[in-house]
């Protein structure tokens, strides 16, 4: 992965440029400048945190509270993570072929070549 990448996860859209566009990744005095946070919610114990979206907040503590209000008001979760969007390094659309195409013709990597016993569920 390119360590100098200027691509980051923004708003749950995967990878978009952050240079010269108003994404508000630096805190400022205007609320429009609040940084963006990616929100992960765990629906119940034993499951993983899943990305549910993003929001703006002035700091981490407020991001957690905003996430509670925006994403868990219908009892969606038991745990929340918030991560600065700038901390997420995303793969680049330009590298899509090199990254993902080589897996396309390797069907043997899928667990489709064994007989699965009837008793095994959720596979």
């Amino acid at each position, binding site marked *: 992965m390119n360590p100098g990448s200027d691509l980051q996860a923004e708003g749950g859209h995967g990878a978009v440029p952050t240079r010269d566009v108003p994404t508000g990744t630096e805190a400022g*005095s205007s*609320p429009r400048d*609040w940084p963006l946070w990616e929100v992960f919610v765990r629906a119940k114990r034993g499951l993983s945190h899943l990305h549910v979206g993003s*929001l*703006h*907040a*002035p*700091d981490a*503590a*407020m991001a957690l*509270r*905003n996430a509670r*209000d*925006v994403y868990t*008001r219908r009892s969606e979760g038991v745990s929340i993570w918030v991560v600065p969007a700038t901390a997420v390094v995303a793969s680049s659309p330009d590298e899509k072929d090199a990254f993902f195409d080589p897996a396309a013709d390797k069907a043997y990597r899928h667990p489709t070549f064994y007989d699965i016993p009837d008793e095994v569920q959720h596979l």
Partner: protein
Amino acid sequence: MSAASPTTESDVATYALRLGDDALILAQRLGEWIAAAPQLEEDVALGNIGLDLLGQARLLLAYAGEVEGAGRSEDDLAFLRDERDFRNLQIVERPNEDFAVTIARQLVFSTYQLGLYARLQHSTDATIAGIAAKAVKEVDYHRDHATQWTLRLGDGTDESHRRMQSGLERIWPYVAEMFVTDDLEAALAADGVAAEVAGLRASWDGYVDAVLAEATLERPAPSWTAEGGRRGVHTECFGYLLAEMQHLHRSHPGATW
């Protein structure tokens, strides 16, 4: 505490009405922020707090109507009473003004309401105890939200500090009224139904003073204090609030969606 006289069903109805009106009117005020808060996230936060309060108001007003026994529903009580019939504290009707004034009002009131509901969980009136037990967790969050913002605005920029201090000054004249225990409340408290608000002041002072100190804010010393909400005496802005809140129901009685 004044000498307790025997309490009646009507006293319990009045008490539930007071609590319900506090929640209803503050819910209406917070709703005014939706689509007007500094950020979309804050629209949702203030809207959620308002909806929590509206839920409490519905339960309390429905109970007030039931105990009163005159056949009035929660809607009748919310939408068909006039200004002098409302029993809310004046602090909850105060205009939102800027965000700092709203946060000052929320910090002051949520801290009060949390202390009150914590006591009312143990009310001898099972309905009031049940409503308080549900609401206490909601109000705990309301207080936390207001605390977080008070700290950030107070200990933020010069402008946010000035606004937050000014917000406290605007709200403080309405603080004293929250802690006035009148004869009705004293009598109900003697029966174990109500909690005497006068007894909540010390812990309220402890919490609020600690937040203000950490936020580098000064506790205001107002030259006058408000009173009269529990007797139906309200401030000039209240009629306008009721007009907006009651307009739809009065223009289209029985309207549903």
